[in-house]
C-alpha cells in the first residue's frame, strides 16, 4: 500500500488547526455549500441533504484524526488509500466553508487566481487564507501521489 508521510512545520500549522476545528464544528449540521436541488420533492431533498451531511462528517473526522498526539510530538501526518479520499474531500469542504465565513472580502476572482498579498491582510483574514492554502497543499499532495489509490478504491 502506497503511503505518503509529510513532515509539517508545527509552529506554522498548529495555529491553523484551531480554525480548522472551529470550521469543522460548524459543518456538523450544515453542508459546506448547500447544493441546489430543485428537481426532487421536499422529502427526498431532506434525505439527500441528510446523507450529504453524514458523509461530510465522516470525511471531516478523518481529516481531524490526522492531527493526533503523534502529530503534535513528531509533526508528521500520513496519507494512504485508507484516508486519501476522505481527506481530499474534507479539505474541499473546509475550504468552501472558509470562503463563506472568512474569505468573501477577497472576492472570488482574487480567490480563484490566488494572487493575494498575504502580508497586507489583517490577522484574522491572513490566518484564514493561510488555512485555505494549507488545505489546498494537502489536496495537491494527495492528488499528486495517491491519485491512483483514489481512482482504484
Amino acid at each position, binding site marked *: 500500500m502506497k503511503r505518503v508521510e509529510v513532515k509539517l512545520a508545527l509552529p506554522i500549522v498548529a495555529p491553523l488547526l484551531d480554525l480548522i476545528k472551529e470550521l469543522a464544528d460548524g459543518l456538523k449540521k450544515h453542508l*459546506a*455549500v448547500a*447544493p*441546489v*436541488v*430543485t*428537481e*426532487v*420533492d421536499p422529502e*427526498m431533498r431532506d*434525505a*439527500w441533504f441528510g*446523507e*450529504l451531511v453524514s*458523509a*461530510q462528517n465522516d470525511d471531516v473526522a478523518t481529516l481531524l484524526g490526522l492531527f493526533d498526539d503523534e502529530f503534535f510530538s513528531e509533526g508528521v501526518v500520513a496519507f494512504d488509500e485508507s484516508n486519501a479520499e476522505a481527506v*481530499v*474531500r474534507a479539505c*474541499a*469542504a473546509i*475550504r*468552501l466553508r472558509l*470562503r463563506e465565513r472568512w474569505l468573501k472580502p477577497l472576492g*472570488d*476572482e482574487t*480567490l*480563484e487566481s490566488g494572487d493575494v498579498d498575504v502580508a497586507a491582510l489583517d490577522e484574522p483574514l491572513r490566518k484564514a487564507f493561510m488555512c485555505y492554502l494549507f488545505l*489546498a497543499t494537502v*489536496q*495537491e499532495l494527495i*492528488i*499528486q501521489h495517491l*491519485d491512483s489509490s*483514489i*481512482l*482504484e*478504491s
Partner: protein
Amino acid sequence: MSRFSRRRLLNPIRSQTLPRHLPHTETELKVDGLWRVVVLNDPVNLMSYVVLVFKKVFGFDEQTARKHMLEVHEQGRSVVWCGLREKAEAYTFTLHQWHLSAVLEPDEAR
C-alpha cells in the same frame, strides 16, 4: 414525484466506471425523458481536484476530464452526463458528496 430512492441515496456512485448512456426503453424515456448533469464553476475547488472527481465519478480518461474541467472553468458550466433521471440524480448526488456545484436539468433537446 421523484424516482430517486432512499436506497439510491445510500448507494451513491463513487468509484465504478459506468457507461455514459445506459440502455433504456422507449417507455422509460416517455415517463421521465432525458436529464443532464451540469457542473457549475466555483472559485474554490482546485482544477486538479475537479479533474480527479470527474475521473473517479464518471470514469473519464485524463483528456476528457480535463476538457470538462476547462469548460467549467472558462464557460462556467459543463454538461458531464446525460441519460435517465434516476442515474442522473445519483451522479448529481455523488458530485455533491465531492462538494462540486452540480445541478440536474431536463434535457430540452429530448
